[in-house]
């Protein structure tokens, strides 16, 4: 697969195509200005996305596995939070029972001893 030298020569003539040196000074100032502006106006989601994007390559695990694990972790976290919201306070029964009768000590269940049930 030989390259046509005439085509290459013609394309090489574009190598010298550069703007004047002042452009690059202005370019740097503009870049710094944009950076500062961006720091002020960046949304939380964009910051989060960039942080995750910068963090992911550091972890030595295939990306697909990592994304899958994150998804499973997120789903688990949501379901645990949802489940814990349904659990009633264990003292609720005790308080309600105490309010409804004159009995002083009402326990919702039979008390469980910490001592071992085994007998020797």
């Amino acid at each position: 697969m030989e390259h046509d030298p005439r085509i290459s020569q013609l394309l090489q003539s574009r190598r010298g195509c550069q703007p004047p040196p002042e452009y690059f000074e202005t370019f740097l100032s503009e870049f710094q200005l944009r950076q500062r502006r961006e720091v002020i106006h960046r949304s939380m989601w964009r910051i989060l996305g960039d942080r995750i994007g910068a963090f992911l390559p550091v972890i030595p695990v295939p990306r697909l596995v990592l994304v899958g694990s994150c998804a499973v972790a997120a789903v688990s976290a949501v379901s645990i939070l949802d489940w814990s919201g349904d659990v009633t306070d264990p003292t609720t029964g005790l308080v309600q029972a105490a309010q409804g009768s004159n009995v002083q000590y009402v326990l919702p269940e039979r008390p469980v001893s910490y001592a071992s049930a085994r007998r020797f």
Partner: protein
Amino acid sequence: MEVQEPSDEELVHRTQNGDARAFDALVVRFSPRLYGLVYNMTTNHEDTNDLLQEIFGKAYRSIRGFQGKSSFYTWLHTIAVHMAINFLKKRNRRRTTSLDDAENGIENDPVFLEATSQGDPSESANLGELQKKLNESLMKLSHEHRAVVTMFDIQGMPHAEIAKILRVSEGTVRSRLFYAHRQLQNHLHEFIQS
């Protein structure tokens, strides 16, 4: 006594540790070269300027993730080429073809003409015409082919470097170059013969 310029690795390391001025030094060092790359892909000054700002912005935001597996130069060029290709795809969706932009194209650019046409005026006129034709031919190439031609012929990068940047094999780079050159040759046939 000569003051030794800090290496790319040192500047990257300092940037990763929060020294924004080290990144400024990288911008100064790499912007002329990246300008050539992006300009020859977009063929438009304003687009090049905006895109370069975005490329350096992205590089700055992602530099903590740079682990030094490749050179900084390759890493930065990878960001630049992929962003330029995405930009060109979006630009093509916005308007039918880049040829609509012929008035603002590289062949009418005074900076470009000054850089390429130094010498005999008649030769300059021919060269201008040839460059115009070349530009039209380049615009007919796909973005991927144009990227390969820009990196190999204009920027003078080796095949292996281009392959790393585009994340393809060297064979793919060679075959894209071959195809692109053949396309250019077909378009420029009469000009080259004369």
